[in-house]
């Protein structure tokens, strides 16, 4: 043990690999924020980087960096808890390491091609080598295949380690969830000219990832986190995890229907999508109750205060961002007017941040704590822990502010472009030029800068927290 210094001797095999994933995740997080700032600014100064780095290019990088940094964060989190949970060393670690480098190289090439090649002709070569042109899964086909192979290696590492060691409720749910996660990606890997069928399966990847399998994956991380940080009894968190899986899949799988209102699919999806997606917030409320109740029972005595704070931010962010902001426009009666407006962007920002960014950041803090030798990270940190507290505040205020600004713009768009003007091109621009929309975009920019400031502080804190700390971590029982 080497206290207070970043030393890989403090980590087990799986954790050594995990911190590599986390490092790339942090870099991509910063990239996401930078390209987000560019797109936000292009709403205000449309000629910015015109025909050099157009909105479409910057946004592609913005949303792809988001997906990949979260995925890297999740994969790192699983490698992180693997040996601890299974009780044996990671199986096939060398292969896992190789997959990490292949994955990272592939991501780098894909991003460079997005930035410097950008577009291609309307043939199959473009889709295989440059850009598939489908939102969130723009990665060209060669990269899709690479991603699937890397995910299979990751799955092998996890499943084989649990099989060699011991299974638990958490690992059982986790492994089944990873099977679904990997399998669903395949639903996005084909071409069809029929755009209705195209979007039907596209939503299997997008919705069933973010509103089902990712939610259950973070449920597993949360369950493990509560045991580690608070010392909650395993039986309690496992039971909660099962309840959450039942509620999450019970509502989220058919909640897919809320994407099938307007893409050509039959009208019965109004009822199915509306009903089940209205139920989707329930498991998220359950998580808030669960985490806060456990924290209260343990008198908020936690082994890692920044991580615990981010876990609590996760439960609220997940509930408000995914739950409340999702529900607000999920019924077809309102979605007819809000679908494809800034309203969706508003929900998207708060939910991705609240549900996923928060919990991955919590795991980053758990990782640096161990990386520095399992040092003290509870109260009484140098400078009263101002860096983690301020970055927590700035990031949450920043994202919440952007969400509200875009919501105002979205309201205005729904009324003016959609309800009154009838969604024509001139109606679209009438709404885009309305003062309420412009104000919304300006405030989004302001809060985007707040978010960026929070990100800078977060990175600084992750690099320095626990440096030179001699006390060992707070014991929890």
């Amino acid at each position, binding site marked *: 043990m080497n206290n207070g210094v970043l030393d890989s001797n403090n980590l087990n095999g799986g954790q050594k690999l995990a911190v590599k994933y986390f490092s790339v995740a942090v870099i991509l997080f910063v990239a996401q924020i930078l390209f987000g700032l560019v797109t936000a600014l292009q709403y205000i100064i449309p000629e910015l980087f015109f025909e050099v780095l157009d909105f479409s290019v910057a946004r592609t990088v913005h949303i792809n960096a988001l997906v990949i940094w979260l995925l890297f964060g999740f994969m790192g989190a699983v490698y992180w808890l693997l040996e601890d949970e299974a009780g044996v060393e990671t199986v096939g670690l060398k292969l896992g390491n190789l997959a990490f480098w292949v994955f990272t190289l592939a991501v780098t090439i894909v991003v460079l091609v997005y930035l410097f090649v950008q577009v291609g002709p309307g043939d199959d070569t473009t889709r295989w080598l440059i850009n598939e042109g489908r939102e969130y899964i723009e990665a060209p086909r060669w990269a899709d295949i690479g991603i699937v192979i890397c995910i299979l290696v990751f799955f092998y590492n996890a499943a084989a380690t649990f099989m060699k060691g011991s299974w638990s409720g958490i690992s059982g749910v986790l492994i089944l969830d990873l099977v679904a996660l990997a399998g669903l990606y395949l639903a996005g890997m084909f071409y069809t000219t029929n*755009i209705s069928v195209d979007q039907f399966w596209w939503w299997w990847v997008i919705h069933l990832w973010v509103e089902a399998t990712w939610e259950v994956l973070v449920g597993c991380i949360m369950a493990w986190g509560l045991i580690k940080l608070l010392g909650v009894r395993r039986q309690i968190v496992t039971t909660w995890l*099962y309840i959450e899986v039942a509620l999450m899949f019970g509502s989220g799988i058919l909640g897919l229907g809320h994407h099938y209102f307007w893409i050509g699919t039959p009208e019965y999806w109004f009822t199915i999508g509306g009903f089940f997606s209205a139920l989707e917030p329930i498991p998220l409320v359950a998580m808030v109750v669960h985490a806060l109740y456990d924290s209260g029972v343990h008198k908020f005595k936690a082994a890692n205060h920044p991580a615990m704070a981010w876990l609590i931010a996760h439960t609220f962010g997940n509930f408000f961002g995914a739950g409340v902001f999702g529900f607000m426009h999920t019924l077809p009666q309102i979605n007819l007017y809000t679908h494809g407006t800034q309203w969706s962007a508003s929900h998207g920002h708060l939910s991705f941040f609240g549900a996923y960014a928060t919990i991955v950041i919590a795991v980053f803090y758990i990782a640096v704590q161990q990386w520095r030798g399992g040092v003290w990270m509870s109260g009484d940190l140098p400078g009263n822990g101002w860096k983690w507290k301020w970055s927590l505040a700035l990031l949450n205020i920043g994202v919440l502010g952007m969400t509200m600004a875009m919501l105002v713009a979205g309201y205005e768009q729904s009324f003016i472009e959609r309800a009154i003007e009838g969604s024509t091109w001139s109606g679209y621009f009438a709404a885009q030029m309305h003062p309420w929309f412009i104000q919304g975009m300006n405030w989004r920019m302001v809060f985007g800068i707040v978010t960026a400031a929070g990100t800078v502080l977060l990175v600084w804190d992750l690099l320095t927290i626990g440096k030179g700390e001699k006390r060992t971590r707070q014991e929890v029982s």
Partner: protein
Amino acid sequence: MITKWWASEEVWRKIAVWVTAGMLLVLMGLTFDTIPKISVGSERVPAYSIINQRIDYVFDEKRNFQVPVFGGEQPLFGKMLSEEEAEALVTWGKKITQGRNCINCHTLLGNGAYFAPDLTKAWLDPNWVDSDLREGLMINFLMDPPNNSMNSSGRKMPNMDISEEEAKAIIAFLKWMSSIDTNGFPYNFKPVEQEG
């Protein structure tokens, strides 16, 4: 302490498994029902050769929203196409829209980015003045968007190096997409003036 049945780990594990399996089964059943209903040539998603016909978007009293309505012949660029030719042209058009990453500024069927107008009913947009001028205006716009900008917001579509043939293919795809029955999305749309 005796655990009540409703707080039992075992009970909830079983519920989780059964609920998940049950929902997946229902989803699979619905998928089998939906896919044929949205296949090309179905009532909701017409065959590609619909681009030979007049397409409109008219309020339907019974369903209480606008639906696509098909009229007589209105061949695209004055040329009637066979089913195969139409499919080839629409396919090329869609591949171009993917290759040029259109969806990261525009929305198609409402999905995509919000920096530029929705393209679901672009073929029917009143911006194209009337059905006589429409095709020419669309080709001009696609081939040189910055110099044919149609709004005063300052936002322009970049030049995407689209040739005339490519523009025609994109327009074929847009015309076909406007024929899809989208359950009244977009609402209250005001289609272009068309003859016939």
